[in-house]
């Protein structure tokens, strides 16, 4: 959240700079099977974001010390490619990527039927090759599609959307300028069949009422994205 400034991001008709209404999503397209050597994969283009996800496994968990006797573990690596942003990102260790990898792992482990694969590892690699705000949401959503593409049993899909606030207006699915100059960002990971949550972060400043509005936008948007996912998976096992 970069703070106010004088940037006007909502016009006199209540429309956003890219023409969306406050509750609108950016355009989304989803494709599976994009990585021939992977067990499951997904390319998701969401606005100008592009995430590519590979799933490998279940496979033997090594090193041994990460093995769990009674269930599989999911190993998530989220990474932004050096050319994915306006200013190049130096490759290498990065606390932000580590944290996003961890919360994504926590969200996915909440829905995958881990106990079916004791002592195994499922590897999920998320590469953001083009970034435009909300990459953690796109990565998590695409990861759940790639897991389904790999035939990994899950209790539900995970759909992640971030709403927020710009110029004191609550808006759905922040784009880059809204994220940079906005006042709050609330990404959530939602199970479409039950409305339950497996992922939640937030930073900025939201009054209780604004918070409620942002929350509702996310839940509605998730249902919309869910339809696109089902289409992409062609009536698969979700």
């Amino acid at each position, binding site marked *: 959240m970069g703070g106010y400034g004088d940037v006007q991001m909502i016009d006199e008709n209540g429309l956003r700079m890219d023409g969306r209404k406050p509750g609108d999503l950016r355009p989304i397209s989803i494709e599976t099977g994009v990585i021939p050597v992977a067990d499951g994969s997904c390319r998701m283009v969401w606005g100008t974001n592009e995430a590519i996800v590979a799933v490998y496994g279940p496979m033997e968990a090594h090193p041994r010390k990460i093995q769990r006797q009674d269930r599989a573990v999911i190993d998530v690596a989220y990474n932004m490619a050096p050319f994915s942003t306006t200013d190049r990102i130096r490759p290498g260790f990065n606390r932000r990527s580590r944290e996003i990898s961890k*919360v994504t792992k*926590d969200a996915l482990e909440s829905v995958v039927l881990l106990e079916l694969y004791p002592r195994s590892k499922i590897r999920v690699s998320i590469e953001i090759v083009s970034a435009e705000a909300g990459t953690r949401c796109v990565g998590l959503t695409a990861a759940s599609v790639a897991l389904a593409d790999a035939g990994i049993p899950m209790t539900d899909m995970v759909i992640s959307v971030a709403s927020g606030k710009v110029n004191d207006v609550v808006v759905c699915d922040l784009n880059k300028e809204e994220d940079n100059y906005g006042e709050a960002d609330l990404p959530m990971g939602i*199970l479409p069949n039950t409305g*339950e*949550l497996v992922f*939640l972060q937030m*930073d900025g*400043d939201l009054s*209780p009422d604004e918070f409620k509005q942002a929350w509702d936008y996310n839940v509605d948007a998730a249902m919309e994205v869910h339809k696109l996912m089902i289409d992409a998976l062609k009536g698969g096992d979700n």
Partner: protein
Amino acid sequence: MSAPTVPNLLRDHLADLAQNDSRLDGREQFGARELKLETGILPRAEGSARVTMGNTIVLAGVKFQLMTPYPDRPNQGGLMCSCEVRPIAGRHWEAGPPSPEAIELGRVVDRGIRESGCIDVDDLCIIPGEKAWQVILDLHAISDDGNLFDAFALAGIAALRSAIVPAERFEVGQDSPLKVSKKPIMCSYHKVGGRFVYDASYKEELGGDERIHITLGDDNHVHSLQKGLKGIFTADEFEEIMEHAKSRCAELRKIVD
């Protein structure tokens, strides 16, 4: 932190206790451990605090450095929040590069303080484009019996509020208190025995599931949220803990004064 095998006996015991609306140390679902906040306890730091919550003890220290403002923000200084859990804090914490758990801990506490806007970075500028203060808040765990998140957040805001800008030592003016305009307070909840409890002990963390961290500011504005660990929760569960957080944050905010 090394990953202990999930202790199933402990999980079962915690579930039984939850059935009877009790906890390991007899507290209620939203009961807190005894809390002590002391400030000005580190002679070399420009601001400092010690928080004791039951058997959990943490320190916070504030230091200042001069920095050159970033070219695109010539009128701003900086606030950095760094968080270390070293082996002193418990046998489950090991030496080496920060674990994913430690990284998350640091980033969540940092966001809660930074996103509240309690430090006005424009106030930290000394000469635009040339010189500004960088405020560094270091959080240091001494004894981890659970809920380091809340202990760090409380020690952090208290240390900042006790800090004196050391302008004389740096020969840029008179010493004065650091301006801290807000009091962001974090409350953390762990799913233990199937329900969320407040201020979990280490054993509850060990035998529990997901956790949710809520940082609230004045007028119950939300500044930061984080769900951690594997686990699913409902909107109703979230609403319940959010209600408790509002009242508990108000209590704690008084202590910080």
